[in-house]
């Protein structure tokens, strides 16, 4: 049997199935068409009243019904939708019997306000409602259904059960880098020879009032509510924050040996991954850009590529003043002169920031960019920022030769992860 190894003698890792859901819709085809057309998925929030809030827009996934709404329920459903698509595309295993482990990036979970309000009502406290009242109400046994719902492990448990993944499923949270971390764990498991195939997923449905308000209190969100579709403006001078969004992405990773052996269609190669953490501040990057620079360099070193080999960067590009400036500093330092030539665009201009899911969602779009040799645009780029002189593929999709793509994810808390992908093995 032929064995496919990369420059470092490790198994080559390919992608044989993908699934995606965003505010643009569910499924690769719909998403790709709208992404290329630059049709924004950002709109006024209808899920809950936004009276009194500074930010009243988001990229909510309204076409998926979960009753009653809560973040873990929507995240779980999004996970199911994208895994179904990815596994069907890969044509691997049998229904409910996926032959490898699950790595899933998720938002933190906790009981939400509707449940607290239900318990408060049940407690029949006439005056002040304290946690002692809630505790009294909770011990009735009536709310046993909430128990697994608000366990952190419950979403991965349900997905593992539904799709029959093998071993202990790993849920992870590295803030906005979570999705990329999930992919990294899958890559490492295949490189270690533990498995030939892995399911890497990100799912996030956390647009609820409290989550939105928390980000809002950090002044992280765009407040340009009047024209939601124009609010996410990565790399533009008038960018004023990110737009919260929801979605999911799934990748079936396989060793190239295993994929070839079963005659699977190969959508692309995951060539490298790099990471580096930041110790500067809880929400801000180190001003010297060293952690981001090191992260990008680690990703290139992992697959033995030079900056000039990268034709397109799928940016983290959140549209916050800070992130986009720091991402430019990182890219311009690592890529040098090539940073003025390399195409860099932000899917978040169109779909918003899908948070824990973003790393996987944007990896799916990166592979579609390679497959179609067409680069999705950065929309809402009307006022260039002279401090960021890069080809952001402004406003209109572009046909281009794309051999290698880098996809960046940088998170609150200082976790940075970059992936490098290609259409064909080097």
């Amino acid at each position, binding site marked *: 049997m032929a064995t496919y190894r990369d420059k470092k003698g490790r198994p080559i890792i390919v992608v044989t199935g993908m699934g995606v859901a965003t505010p643009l819709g569910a499924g690769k085809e719909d998403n790709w068409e709208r992404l290329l057309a630059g049709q924004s998925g950002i709109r006024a929030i209808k899920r809950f009243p936004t009276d009194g809030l500074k930010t009243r827009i988001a990229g909510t996934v309204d076409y998926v019904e979960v009753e009653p709404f809560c973040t873990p329920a929507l995240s779980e459903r999004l996970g199911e939708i994208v895994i179904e698509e990815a596994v069907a595309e890969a044509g691997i295993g049998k229904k409910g019997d996926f032959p490898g482990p699950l790595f899933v990036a998720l938002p933190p979970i906790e009981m939400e306000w509707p449940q607290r309000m239900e318990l408060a009502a049940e407690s029949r406290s006439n005056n002040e409602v304290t946690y002692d009242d809630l505790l009294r109400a909770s011990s009735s046994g009536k709310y046993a259904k909430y128990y697994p719902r608000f366990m952190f492990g419950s979403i991965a448990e349900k997905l593992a059960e539904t799709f029959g993944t093998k071993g202990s499923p790993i849920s992870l949270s590295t803030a906005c880098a979570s999705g990329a971390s999930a992919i990294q764990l899958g890559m*490492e498991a295949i490189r270690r020879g533990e498995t030939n195939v892995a399911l890497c997923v990100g799912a996030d449905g956390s647009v609820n009032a409290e989550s939105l308000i928390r980000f809002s209190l950090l002044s992280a969100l765009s407040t340009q509510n009047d024209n939601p579709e124009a609010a996410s403006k990565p790399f533009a001078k008038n960018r004023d924050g990110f737009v919260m969004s929801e979605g999911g992405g799934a990748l079936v990773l396989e060793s190239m040996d295993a994929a070839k052996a079963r005659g699977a269609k190969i959508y692309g190669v995951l060539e490298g991954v790099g990471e580096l953490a930041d110790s500067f501040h*809880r929400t801000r990057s180190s001003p010297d850009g060293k952690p981001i620079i090191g992260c990008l360099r680690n990703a290139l070193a992992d697959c033995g590529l030079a900056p000039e080999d990268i034709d397109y960067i799928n940016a983290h590009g959140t549209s916050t003043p800070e992130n986009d400036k720091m991402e430019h500093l990182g890219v311009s330092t690592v890529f040098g002169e090539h940073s003025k030539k390399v195409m860099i665009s932000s899917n978040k201009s169109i779909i918003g920031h899908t948070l824990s899911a973003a790393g996987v969602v944007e990896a799916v779009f990166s592979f579609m960019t390679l497959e179609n040799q067409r680069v999705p645009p950065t929309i809402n780029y009307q006022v260039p920022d002279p401090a960021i002189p890069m080809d952001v593929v402004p406003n209109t999709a572009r046909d281009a030769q794309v051999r290698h793509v880098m996809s960046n994810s940088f998170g609150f*808390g200082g976790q940075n992860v970059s992936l490098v992908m290609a259409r064909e093995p080097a």
Partner: protein
Amino acid sequence: MSGEREVWITGIGILSCLGEGPEEHWQKLMQGKPVADTATFAPYIVHPIGTVSFDKQIPKKGDQRQMEAWQRIGTYAAGLALDSAGVKGNSEILGKMDMIVAAGGGERDLAVDSAILTGMPKTGNPDVYLNERLMNDLRPTLFLAQLSNLLAGNISIVHGVTGSSRTFLGEEGSGVDAVRIAFLRIKDGLSKIALVGGAHNGERKDMFLLYEFGSYNLKDKFAPVWDRGSKGGFALGSLGAFLVLEDPEHAKARGAKPIARLSAVLSERCRRKPGELTATLRGMWDKIKGTLKAGGHAIISGATGAEPAATEERALFADHAGVPVRATGTYIGHGVEPQFAMNIALAAVAIGHGGLYPPTDSASVEKPMQGSLTQAVVTGVGHWRGEGLALVEAAI
């Protein structure tokens, strides 16, 4: 890839109701008298962290203010582990050190929640009222304490661990997988030195609330883990536990000695239908049994006290009647995510002392140890999901 390496434990950082560091833990365990707080949160029982001089590991007050209790406990324990490994402040090593943290969620501001719930029935529009109150009452910094990955973030900021940073979610199982992945990455040569563990604040009414939905809280009267009857239950414990795992070549190059060797870390998932947990534990045991030496090994159990998990775990012990067992949960309570790392640490400490602490239960699941302890099988049995097993051995 190059050949597989051994994995050494070169640092231990533990903090619980028993105190801080290996020696304080060992002395309290040897005294054989579990202590739990049955009064403060009555009827709920907790194992409180007590008074900790956080300044010793988190010198900047500003850093401490940006953390909730679970993050302070974890950042403190991580500092102890780095001290123990002799790498504290060594920016060259810390800049390349990998980190995996198993974490739960942030803590609620109980006063804010209570005030909102109290005021809500008196308003015409609860949703709009909620928006107003949250906008005015939430502290922006609370958000950071709430994020699960901010324990790792705080460890990066306070101690400078920046090689990589990953946070796993999912109760007890996440703690097992955190250790497993850190272990495998070193074994495989991908990582040279790693900090792995977690932290838990059990003195939280919002946590009792969650576990009360599933009737898991131990109430009213304290009893050792094996003496909690058919209903079972766990007493939450506040604790932090971090291990420094290291490639022996890396350790030797810097003159570091092993505390113990971590020889296997396994995790599994089962649906917990009757008998499945026992079968899963047996399956993992079978993978390590070839390395166990007669008479020199013991089981450090991660039993929480919850049923039916505790009974199913006892069926595994019954297969190995001569192997002494200790459930550390009797002493330190249930710390959920960091429990597995804590038990690996306590196993290493016991091996260092060449024996076990005295039995505690009246059910006689725990028996005195004859002979010298050189190997410990550490079980991780989640109260609801998550199964793990580790083998800790004397280093030489």
